[in-house]
């Protein structure tokens, strides 16, 4: 895929793969020794794959639709999503081999397909007998359980099908009404046994597949692409075929009105991996994009920090062992290892390095000798290689750009359009009203859209990996990549160490994650402004809450200062390194 070397024989770049997994040149058939890493896809072991026996599937309902199951809907969603990822440059393997197999495995494990008795059957008997009330209030109704137990023992598909036609005739007062066959059952299912599929979970699937293939897309990037519209999520259902009618409870399942958050997708992904009994994921090694050394490099560039800082991030990574293959690679179901958030981790490492070098207590970083001198003379202090890095100047430059971007993002958030052309209605009775409303909305949008002046709905910007970019060619000195850290370093016993001798811990004691869900509880007022700014910068880049990054920072600090903490727990939080 990304093998771009020229052929030794004919100098062409036109590669194919042999059966043995070796690259060969299509022009001159020269076979190389280079092999592509074979991705292992046979994790569905010894499973009896049976297709679902649907019996007489009624094709035509009153409104021209046909029967469809909720999982079919989700399958379509996933298909659209992975096609979008392909368009972004992800390898085609992901769709045809990885995600497909994950999905099949899921269907099998959750007994929705590929097994003897699909759980969707039970709902047909249910629809007729239920009467009104709110679905959400009491998910464990005795009558439902009773019906389920009945169908499990007697499962006669033929007689069950005769009830299917009555689904569409169910009166509007019943909340079990849905366009899909098993919509109502889907929402009532006991979640502890089965991992019920949701829209956010489709992204968990995508992320899991991306991780398996080790694509250079982090979870935060994936979610950002979703929000920016490059990956279908909101209103995907409008791409369902005509015969798949969506109404009633289906709306609760497929029509989301919020953007998923990192934590949610991340946790679900791990749950999913365990549920599917997946083996150890392919190794995350030093040459992987997701390795902290690589990600730190990327984020350092994006944050406009000096390239020299990379040495320091690598040192920290090495010191606390978070660059090890076993630490980084996902082992599903293993509850003792901490689940790694690659992007958040990389950001947190940079924050820790900044604290090591600059202390970030609102004083040291601002009033270093270098800053003092340069503020008097209004020039950069140069050494023979280039300017010295000054935190205060960096802060001003980055803050300015960040504020501009943040303001733009805030406005975009206020201008999201959540609805789409396909009208949604809970029942047939509401349909005409919904259509009228839709028409009025379109009219008003046209009327006021014209009055918005020259501001047109901008074309979707091309997806980019970098949200902030800094060019060394800028003569205004706003790019800090080439700046040197010499101003704050000193040589001690042949090693470069920071002149700053102090360090303050974010928290002396870590919380129990299992109890309260967090390692620490971040409150802006309790921390220096510089620290808050740095958290805010990465919070913007990764689109997560500052507290999320703060948790990682705490975790890293505790690993880094492990021994000292153990000894000095009683004393104040300022340590000598």
């Amino acid at each position, binding site marked *: 895929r990304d093998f771009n070397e020229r052929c030794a024989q004919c100098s062409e770049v036109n590669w194919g793969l042999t059966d043995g997994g070796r690259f060969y040149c299509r022009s001159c058939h020269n076979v190389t020794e280079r092999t592509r890493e074979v991705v292992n896809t046979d994790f569905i072991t010894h499973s009896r794959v049976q297709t679902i026996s649907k019996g007489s599937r009624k094709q035509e309902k009153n409104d021209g639709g046909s029967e469809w199951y909720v999982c079919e809907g989700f399958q379509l969603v996933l298909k659209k999503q992975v096609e979008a990822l392909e368009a972004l440059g992800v390898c085609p393997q992901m769709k045809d081999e990885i995600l497909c197999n994950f999905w099949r495995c899921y269907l099998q494990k959750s007994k929705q397909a590929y097994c003897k008795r699909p759980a969707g059957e039970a709902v047909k008997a249910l629809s007729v007998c239920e009467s009104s009330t709110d679905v959400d209030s009491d998910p464990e109704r005795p009558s439902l359980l009773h019906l389920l137990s009945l169908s499990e023992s007697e499962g006669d598909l033929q007689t069950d099908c005769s009830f299917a036609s009555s689904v569409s005739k169910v009166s509007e007062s019943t909340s079990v009404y849905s366009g899909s066959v098993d919509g109502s059952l889907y929402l009532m299912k006991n979640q502890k046994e089965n991992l019920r599929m949701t829209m956010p979970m489709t992204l968990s699937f995508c992320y899991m597949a991306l991780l398996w293939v080790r694509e250079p897309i982090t979870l935060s990037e994936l979610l950002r692409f979703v929000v920016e519209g490059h990956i279908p999520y909101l209103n995907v259902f409008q791409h369902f075929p005509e015969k798949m009618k969506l109404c009633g409870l289906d709306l609760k399942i497929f029509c989301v009105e919020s953007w998923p958050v990192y934590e949610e997708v991340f946790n679900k992904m791990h749950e999913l991996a365990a549920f599917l009994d997946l083996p150890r994921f392919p190794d995350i090694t030093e040459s992987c994009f997701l390795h902290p050394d690589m990600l730190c490099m990327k984020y350092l560039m994006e944050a406009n920090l000096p390239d020299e800082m990379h040495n320091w991030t690598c040192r920290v990574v090495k010191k606390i062992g978070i660059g090890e293959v076993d630490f980084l690679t996902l082992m599903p179901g293993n509850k003792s290892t901490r689940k790694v958030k690659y992007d958040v981790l990389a950001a947190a490492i940079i924050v820790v390095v900044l604290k090591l070098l600059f202390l970030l207590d609102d004083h040291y970083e601002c009033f270093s000798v270098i800053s003092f001198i340069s503020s008097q003379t209004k020039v950069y202090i140069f050494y023979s290689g280039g300017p010295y890095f000054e935190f205060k100047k960096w802060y001003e430059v980055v803050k300015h750009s960040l504020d501009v971007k943040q303001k733009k993002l805030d406005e975009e958030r206020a201008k*999201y359009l959540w609805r789409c052309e396909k009208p949604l209605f809970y029942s047939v009775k509401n349909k005409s009203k919904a259509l009228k409303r839709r028409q009025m909305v379109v009219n008003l949008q046209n009327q006021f859209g014209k009055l918005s002046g020259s501001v047109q709905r901008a074309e979707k910007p091309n997806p980019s990996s970098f949200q902030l970019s800094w060019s060394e060619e800028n003569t205004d000195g706003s790019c800090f990549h080439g700046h040197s850290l010499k101003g704050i370093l000193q040589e001690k016993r042949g090693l470069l160490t920071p002149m700053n001798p102090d360090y303050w811990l974010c928290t002396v004691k870590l919380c129990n994650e299992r109890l309260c869900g967090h390692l620490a509880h971040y409150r802006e007022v309790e921390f220096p402004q510089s620290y808050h700014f740095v958290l805010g910068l990465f919070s913007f880049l990764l689109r997560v809450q500052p507290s999320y990054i703060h948790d990682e920072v705490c975790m890293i600090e505790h690993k880094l200062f492990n021994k000292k903490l153990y000894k000095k727990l009683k004393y104040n939080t300022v340590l000598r390194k």
Partner: protein
Amino acid sequence: SSNEHKLNFKKSKDACLSYIQDALLQKQWKRAAEFLTCFVESLEKDYSREHIGPSEMIWRIGTEILWHHSQSSMKEFSCFMEQMKTLGVKRYLKVCLEHVFHLLCNGQIDEAYQNLSLAESWRFGEQTAIQDKEMKLIQAYRGLLDYYSWAKQKNILFENSEDGFSDLAVEQEMHGYFRKAAVNLKEIIKIPGVWDIFVKCYVDLLEFYGDHNEARQVLNEYAYNSKFPANPNAHVYLYQFLKRQGESKKSLISALKILHDIVPSHELMIDFNTMLQKSKKRKKRRLGLEVIFAALDYAGWKENAKAWSCLARQVKQIVISEKHLDWIKQEWNSRKDWWPAFHFSRYLAKRNWQENKSLSYGKALVAGILLGKGCKYFKYVSHQGCKAQLKRFRMLKKFVNRHNPVYLRISG
């Protein structure tokens, strides 16, 4: 939990709304329209638990934008209002009424009238009864427009009558409008409220057709019925009517009494004081003094030469008669701490002298009596006046000097 920070439909629309609000406050109509375009899809969502629903917000915001936006036409505006009428049946009449107001502001009287008639004929089950108040208003405004037509016909009639022709058709039309207008205007003013314009028009009609009793009754109700909110204009209208009718000073004075209580700074206080000063009754004269002092407490009256001359006249009269000096003392008691700086500073002396001699004369007299001949205001003005060889200022100086002991008795 992290779910609090989740961006969802509602949060996104709340943010959108605050951007709209900012844009409206800064009169950035294009920007407001831009964000409103994104907001309108809220109509498709259920907001029944909120205090104000999106349809009402869109109506109000959209009205503002369309009214002020440079590229928006009246046609577009009306089209929008028609859409808004269909959006909420509970607001139907309100929207109609506001639409009519906008049409009137734009000078489209006929369209306004049509809309009012249409609205009047609207029926919608129990909503008709619930929106009874709005219906009355609609009828009242139609009555107002009928009055307006009546007035037009009346003018035509009088123009023609100068030529000696009497146009029967016009006259009939005029009477027709009168009847229509009278019916509706009479209805609305029965309900407690502030109906200045309706009252004025109705009284005008009644007076024209000679029904003075009814007019008097209407105005009395409007001014004195405690169910109606306190309204200075009610008293002004009554007073003006009584004056037109040539009523006695006694009834005129009683009409202005409450006005003085609620608006001591009203411009009619000069008339009031003038009438009271001349009264034979001691109580009335006392009240007159109180009235004029109270009026001059207000900044808007500082440079009112007429008011000062009223006060000067009364003060002079009291001083000469040497009776009721205690009246002046009483009034001055609460004012002696701040009136000197407020009215009688040296700076004001200079300015008043430059700008208005009559004003400075009146003030100087009052100052001289209240503060004595040594007060800087009096000294400056009288000096300037004598320098300019103006007779009255010389007289003034003599007068104050002669009556200086009065000052001592007042200030003691």
